[in-house]
């Protein structure tokens, strides 16, 4: 069963000069137990998409979609508050820079306790305090923090980034979510710590059958730890498929360029050769191209590309391009 089924979601920003379409008709599906990566440069709208799913965007942003189903329940018919209530029960999110996501004047233990909902505790209300504390200790152990006493009484500014990210994962786990959205969880860390966090996420996926939507700009990490990948560029859906499909035969010129630009992904480069990269840079919100937004930079662009391409599906490998690389593989 599809956990999350989003079709043609658009997010517009209200400005004094009109509405700017930051995210333009993106589709996304998640199955149970799946680890999907959402890849794109900074400015591609991946964080916006995640925030729109969770529902933490303020009123300057307008979200509308053709289809937005959570576990076969249609969420577009509900008001934003109702939507948020249903989603936050089963979906959790962790952010970049975890130390800024914790309240600086409260101890970590208190914040964890806050995340433990009342319904999960049985027993009378004088027993609840102790039960809460036990639950918090269990959560800390689940994310690999053995020294829970010290962690309980510390303030966020006393902890390292990786530690804070574990605490954030613990807070996310408190609700026993079915889907965890990880928005660039390791962007602020060293690589050794990055590996620890990813291993933790992978073990959570295997042991608890929890789906993970991993948002990142680092292609290498994403291809290692995910089963399926969706690629976005400048707010538009570009390509989606299993990791092997995308890695072995990218259909979209942008995905090809991404793979080419990371030296580890492409081992056929000869010594001292120039790395290929697309010329130009991601367009600003004020000057978004019409049609396919990669148009100005794409080496294969032609006149047809001023009209937005329709999604083509080849055995589960979807691509949004008029001149895809399918026939060249």
């Amino acid at each position, binding site marked *: 069963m599809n956990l999350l089924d989003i079709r043609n979601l658009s997010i517009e920003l209200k400005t004094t000069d009109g509405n700017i379409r930051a995210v333009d008709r993106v589709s996304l599906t998640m199955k149970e137990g799946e680890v999907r990566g959402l890849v794109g440069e900074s400015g591609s709208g991946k964080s916006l998409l995640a*925030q729109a799913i*969770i529902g*933490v965007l303020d009123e300057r942003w307008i979200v509308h979609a053709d289809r937005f189903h959570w576990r076969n329940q249609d969420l577009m018919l509900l008001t934003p508050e109702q939507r948020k*209530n249903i989603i*936050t*029960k089963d979906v*959790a*999110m*962790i*952010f970049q*820079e975890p130390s*800024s*996501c*914790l*309240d*600086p*004047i*409260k101890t970590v233990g208190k914040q964890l306790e*806050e*995340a433990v*909902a009342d319904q999960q505790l049985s027993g009378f209300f004088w027993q609840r305090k102790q039960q809460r504390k036990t639950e918090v200790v269990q959560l800390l152990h689940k994310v690999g923090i053995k020294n829970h006493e010290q962690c309980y009484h510390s*303030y966020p*500014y006393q902890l390292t980034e990786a530690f804070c990210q574990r605490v*954030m994962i613990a*807070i996310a786990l408190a*609700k026993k979510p079915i889907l965890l959205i990880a928005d660039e969880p390791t962007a602020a860390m060293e690589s050794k710590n990055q590996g620890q966090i990813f291993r933790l996420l992978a073990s959570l996926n295997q042991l608890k059958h929890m789906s993970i939507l991993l948002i990142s700009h680092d292609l290498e990490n994403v291809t290692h730890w995910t089963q399926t990948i969706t690629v976005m560029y400048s707010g538009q859906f570009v390509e989606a498929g299993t990791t092997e499909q995308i890695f072995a035969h990218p259909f979209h010129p942008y995905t090809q360029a991404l793979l080419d630009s990371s030296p580890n992904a492409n081992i056929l480069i000869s010594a001292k050769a120039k790395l290929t990269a697309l010329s130009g840079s991601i367009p600003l919100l004020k000057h978004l191209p019409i049609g396919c937004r990669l148009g100005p930079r794409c080496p294969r662009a032609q006149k047809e590309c001023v009209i937005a391409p329709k999604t083509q599906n080849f055995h589960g490998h979807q691509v949004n391009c008029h001149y895809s690389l399918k026939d060249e593989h």
Partner: protein
Amino acid sequence: MLIFTLRRLTLFFFTLVILSVFAFSLCYLFPGEPIVNLTGRINDNAAQLAALKLQYHFNENVFFQYISYLKHIFSGNFGLAMNNQLPIGPLISKLLPATIELSLVALLIALFIGIPVGFIAAIFHRKPIDNTILILSMIGYSIPVFWLGLIAILIFSIYLGWLPSSGGIGLIYEIKSVTGIQFIDILMSDNPFKWQAFRSATMHIILPATVIAIAPATIFIRLARTAMLEVLDTNYIKSAQAKGLTFFEIIYQHAIRNALMKMILHVGLQFVNLMTFAMITEVIFSWPGIGRWLINSIYQRDYTAIQSGLLVLSTFIFIVHILTDFFYAALNPIARGKRFGSR
């Protein structure tokens, strides 16, 4: 924490030294005989003046004069006021608490009005109520406090007759002055008409305290609004929303405490600003405080009174400043590290 305390105390000590040197030098800067300016005895003849000079070590060089001046200050001898030859020390000890009382009440009013209104303006940001609050606070900030006092007397005392317009308490009540703060003295005395006196004192303090409180309240509104807007924009509020906490839980549990923390240092600094407004308002409402006395003395060129009054007032202001700094650092462990250094 210890090092921070030591540094602050050293700074305080040096500031006091500078202040006392400045106050001492005033007796030379004012026209007239320095010894007369220092002690206030304008009617003494030459022999008495010579005796005084000996007492204050005026025959030796300036440094010893300064030390002897300090000794006299510490023993409570501030000299006599020039215009009525009354000793200044006891006078100040009655006047200063009255001003403190007025300022504290005004501070409380300003806090109770300013902070909630500022928070409301931030929570309803960009909606009409935010703009209304901003406009009202700008108007409140621009009204000169002395004019506001006069208009308040015109409306509330003369046209409506609700509140009295001068004095600290009704003239018929005789309260023994122990601490100088009227409310405490009333509660401590055993006058049979205690509660009427209390009521009278309250009626007398409402109008001046509110007039003083208006301008600082608008500053607090602005501070609270900025602090709350900053807090609402942070990552931890977003992740609290993602956690699923309700709006009110977030505001109450996280936002208010963080916003208060951000603005507490500024609140403490506003107290001295408030005291300045209090001094002007005392003149209009004939409140028996140090402001009215000091301004009268300046107008009448009573140099001894000016000198002692300035010393006491500025020392008090610095004590409040240091205490606020200290209090803020004790509350907020992050602030202790970065307050210093010559950059």
